[in-house]
């Protein structure tokens, strides 16, 4: 069996995490926070009109706030 077939990140990570959640949870938390932060930053670059379409925003108060913010 070649290395590519043997390597399964999901399985490896799940086993490691299960063995020692206290050790790996902080690492996971940092990853999740960084991912959210990155996504929020990407959204900030978009014009309000695009955001409204992307998220199908219908709340007029929210649209007003988004427009004021930018």
């Amino acid at each position, binding site marked *: 069996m070649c290395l590519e077939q043997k390597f399964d990140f999901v399985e490896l990570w799940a086993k490691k995490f299960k063995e020692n959640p206290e050790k790996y949870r902080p690492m*996971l938390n940092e990853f999740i926070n960084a991912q959210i932060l990155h996504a929020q930053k990407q959204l900030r670059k978009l014009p309000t009109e695009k955001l409204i379409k992307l998220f199908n925003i219908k709340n007029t108060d*929210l649209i007003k706030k988004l427009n004021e913010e930018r």
Partner: protein
Amino acid sequence: MKDFDYLVTDSNYLIEFCQSFCKILEKFAKYIVVSGFFVICSGRSRGTEDIDIIMESIEYESFIELFAELQKNNFTCLQSSDPREIYKYLIEAMPIRILREEKLIPNIELKFVKDVLDEYQMKTRKIVEFIDRNIYFSSVEANIAFKEELLKSPKDLDDAKHLRITYYEIINEEEIEKLKEMIRKYRL
């Protein structure tokens, strides 16, 4: 909130966001958190931008109170700021999206219980010891069954694999089969 305020290692922003929402929601209705967020809380290394929550159907009067309390705590709804309109979405079995502090990500997708399968998940909801948070989730078996029988994308199958490894001592295979049968009956 400044960009890095929530970069702490004892918790993560998603959990804090979900907990603060559920703390308000549980005063008014039973709920369950389902799917991706459950898997992430169980240690799966992947991102998500939304948290799926199913809640019991409640009367309009209770919903007004719930919505007022959510607004007091800086939660807003993407669809409208008028509770009458939002409630209409929910009773017509359409999900609504909830944000906090006008941040579009992360958000909560919230819907009312819609069928026997949702009711069953609500009845078998649990606070999961491994996750150690005061949040009610649908059972491990339900999450696996939905991912393997209904959703089936590569991401969902990887989620199911992660759950099977993490909870292998407590997983009830008969329960998973029962849920898959219900999914075939009510959702496929």
